């Protein structure tokens, strides 16, 4: 299965970036082989509004089944929900650690956004 993880860096050893819309990168990780692909999110860092929506589109286009991140606001959640991507929020650690946790069923899917909408 492919999972997207919001990441502060470009490797599996990078810390998870708790922000979704304004995450530095997304790592698209194969949960079996740990092969991964890096998707930069820099065009979103300076968006005045709607970063969560744009980030949702990036992740959706990668064909992942799950997003693992720290915080996910209502608009981003709606986007992900609309395309059937499940969301895990409120976790931390390195990208490798969170994917391991996910594989071991130690993470739970969110039923909704875990933070309020915010401009930035």
């Amino acid at each position, binding site marked *: 299965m492919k999972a997207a993880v919001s990441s502060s860096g470009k490797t599996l050893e990078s810390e998870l970036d708790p922000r979704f819309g304004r995450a530095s990168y997304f790592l698209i990780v194969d949960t079996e082989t740990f092969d991964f692909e890096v998707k930069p999110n820099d065009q979103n860092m300076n*968006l005045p*509004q*709607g970063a969560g*929506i*744009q980030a*949702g*589109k990036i992740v*959706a286009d990668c064909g992942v089944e799950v997003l693992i991140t720290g915080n996910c606001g209502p*608009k981003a959640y*709606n*986007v992900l929900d*609309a*395309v059937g991507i499940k969301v895990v929020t409120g976790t931390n650690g390195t990208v490798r650690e969170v994917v391991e946790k996910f594989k071991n069923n130690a993470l739970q899917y969110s039923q909704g956004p875990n933070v309020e*909408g915010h401009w930035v």
Partner: protein
Amino acid sequence: MIVTVASGKGGTGKTTVAVNLAVIAPEGSVEVFDCDVEEPNAHLFIKPENIVTKEISTMIPDVDMNLCTLCGECEKICRFSAITMIAKKIMVFPEMCHSCKGCSMVCPAGAIKEGSRVLGSLLTGQSSRGFNLTWGELRVGEAMSPPLIKQVKNKIDKGIGKLFIVDAPPGTSCPAVVTLRDADFALLVAEETPFGLNDLALTVEGLKKLGVPMGIVLNRADMENGIIDDYAVRENIEILQRIPFSREAAKVCAKGHFLVDELPEIKALFQDIYLKIINNLNSIQKSDKGGQ
């Protein structure tokens, strides 16, 4: 003519000045408009009757997926991320929409119809003192107040030749500016504190840009330190009146009563403010005519 009561800093007494002026003015000569739609207060003092409420909405896109060809043009033109295409679906985020109608204009399939989002309410009622009050109440959770403020201001019928007293929101950004533009005169209610002076100066800067003439009313003016006086002299703005601080006045306002009903010495001050405003407006009218 429109007199807008403004301040920059909140809580200096804008609403108090606006409603007491309305009461002191000759019966039938004024109307009051409360443009502080985030936190309207004038109605608490005026206690209007026969209130008519109208819901105010703004246009948002409503996409007919049967007609949509998924070309993505709507997403491209939208500056506010309010409409976006994800995995063969068009999603609309109503609270992000500024109602520019760009999406419906570019849609080649005519798939975008007009939906709506509630901004708040527009209310009108009559005071027992013989004037009308019009005000807006922004829906709690709605971020954009200027469109509702514009609706309140649209109710000003300049043709009827009355004095329109407008209560402005605090600050110097869009809500205050939308309210203050096209005022004939701005009545600035200031307090003699460093915060009061700082925010007054910002408002004056804004009014100069807008080209609105102004005068100052000093509220709670017991401090004798003259920081506003010095400023007014420097900027060449007339101080129309000083309303002294008194616990009695604070109590009357706290209860939602009119100062001019209960405190004769303050009533005299308001009569004087009213006359000075009328004089100012007359000279503005004259110079306007002279210029034509």
